[in-house]
């Protein structure tokens, strides 16, 4: 089996003293990460591996944790502007999540203006959800029209967190924010719901890249922000394999837990077993032995 490539890129200076990412360093990290992921010397040259000019891109962020623990605009807007200046048109890029309120509370300025990066939630006028549920195996959901109709390609720009029910929430679970009924899919450790949702055509056929925001990682008592168990890791994790990216995220959380003297997720009976289901569904690699991890610090 061919191994999946996952890049971990670290910078000790990306977060300010108050914990806010510095956009210039964010961009340097993401560019370096893409270079290592695609094997090119200039990140712009690697973008064609993921996107075609003219495509409409959705950057799905995670803002449930508001300003304290979310994908901040300092990260996502930086990424969006760069992609808009390189391979895609700026107004073909939507940074989005479930609600405008969550986005605003996280510091986003909502906009749907022609000619610029667009930022809005599924509850915006003109968005909303599809009318008929899409069924895949055990799930059935309405999808955000942003995911279903307004984009051709998707980046899951998710926050890496411990999750009391799923074990770990990262790039795949981020798409729970693309459906109308995520509350129905949290039992049984969110398994098999996370992979079965990802497997739907509206996600699997559009997903191109996972970028895990591990700048500040909640390694215990997540997904809510609990500063006692949050660590400034100052990392991004990038992969075109959505399962491998999350599996590496899981390892980072386990390493942090071990370092802090906490039991493993397995010992707490909340391993993210959905990753192994995802592997069985051929969505990617969950076994670390099959993942090539490339780490670099800038």
């Amino acid at each position, binding site marked *: 089996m061919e191994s999946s490539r996952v890049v971990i890129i670290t910078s000790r200076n990306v977060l300010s003293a108050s914990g806010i990412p510095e956009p210039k360093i964010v961009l340097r990290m993401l560019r370096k990460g893409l270079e290592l992921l695609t094997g090119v010397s200039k990140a712009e040259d690697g973008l064609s591996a993921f996107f075609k000019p003219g495509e409409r891109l959705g950057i799905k962020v995670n803002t449930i944790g508001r300003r304290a623990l979310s994908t901040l605009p300092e990260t996502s807007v930086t990424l969006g502007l760069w992609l808009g200046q390189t391979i895609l048109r700026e107004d073909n890029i939507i940074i989005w999540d479930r609600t405008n309120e969550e986005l605003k509370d996280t510091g986003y300025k909502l906009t749907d203006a022609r000619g610029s990066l667009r930022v809005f939630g599924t509850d915006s006028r003109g968005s909303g959800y599809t009318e008929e549920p899409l069924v895949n195996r055990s799930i059935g959901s309405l999808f955000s029209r942003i995911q279903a109709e307004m984009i051709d390609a998707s980046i899951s720009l998710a926050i890496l967190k411990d999750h009391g029910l799923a074990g770990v929430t990262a790039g795949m679970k981020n798409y729970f924010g693309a459906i109308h009924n995520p509350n129905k899919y949290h039992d049984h450790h969110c398994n098999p719901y996370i992979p079965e949702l990802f497997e739907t055509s509206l996600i699997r056929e559009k997903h191109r890249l996972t970028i895990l925001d591990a700048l500040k990682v909640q390694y215990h*008592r997540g997904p809510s922000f609990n500063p006692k168990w949050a660590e400034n890791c100052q990392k991004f994790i990038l992969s075109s394999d959505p399962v491998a990216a999350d599996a590496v995220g899981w390892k980072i959380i386990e390493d942090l837990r071990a370092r802090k003297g906490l039991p493993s997720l397995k010992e707490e009976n909340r391993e993210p077993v959905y990753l192994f289901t995802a592997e069985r569904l051929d969505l990617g690699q969950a076994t670390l032995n099959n993942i090539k991890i490339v780490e670099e610090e800038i």
Partner: protein
Amino acid sequence: MDRRDFLKCSVTGCGLLLTAESGGRALAALAAPAAKLSRVEAKYYQKLPDREIKCDLCPRFCQLGDKERGFCGVRENQDGKYYTLVYGKVCSYNIDPIEKKPFFHFLPGSAAFSLATAGCNLSCKFCQNWQISQMRPEQVQNIDLPPEAVAEQANRYNCPVIAYTYSEPVIFYEYMYDTSVSARRRGIKNVVVSAGYINPEPLADLIKVVEAIKIDLKAFNQDFYTNYVRGELQPVLDAIKQIARSKVWLEIVYLVIPTLNDNPEEIRMMSRWLKNEIGPDYPIHFSRFHPMYLIKNLPPTPVSTLEKLRDIALEEGLHYVYMGNVPGHPAESTYCPSCGKLIIERYGYTVKKKGLSGNKCQHCGQTIPGVWS
């Protein structure tokens, strides 16, 4: 909105609910759309360390961190306190005949002021009202209708009954409870249409303020509850027994879905269980399924299947076995279990009391259980 502008269905404006509402009376719009969700502290939960909570309302016992919602989608942990977001936030209301709930032994022919909020603590793949039950409250249009206003409106429209129905009243428990208390003060009765997925303590408290509960028993095996309902059978059976032990009137509905829960032997076992555990006198309605929501690949239930299952339940000794969603069928009507004569004739939701005198069969004097006045 002008009073002449009638809302024939829910404020969600969804077509399917319009169909479901077609037996009801049109109702004037009551209020402007609600701007915000409610923030009323929930009953029945425990505070845990690190701002987590554990909900004790239903058998799911959702344990949630800050800003997370329960399976129902309408209760949220906000900084370690648990809130209902739908208190007084009605997404669907109408005046329906009580037979539509269905209650056949509870004030026949009465008008029931019927209402619902968004949300449900189950996830039935065949849900007939999924556009409200499987939604979060912010995904539907709500109006503000506080408990006092519900009772006032019921009075205004000459409804002797308020029905908590359409979605799953358990998830708007606090609102239902307070409305029931308010309605009782005005002499209005309260009925609950539920799947019975509720814990004993909240059910015990609810029983004190309502007059009747209809339970949707979805099947008589756990596999069905696992695969098509996403819940457990046993708590529902426990709720049925708990209600039957109380003074609250009980009726049971069993939606028959072809090939999924129409096994005759299972119906026989269920009928025996009902007779043994709660006695033969609580009505059971075998209702006809129509393809809906996530199950669209099955046909409507053949009438012959319903007839067969009804025969089995009667053979097992249940006294009042009805068929639902088959207008004009003789099994919509009530027959005296003693003399076999027609007591209440029904066609759809139209009722003619023919052979009932008080609570007795006019023909033979047999007591017919129910709430008749």
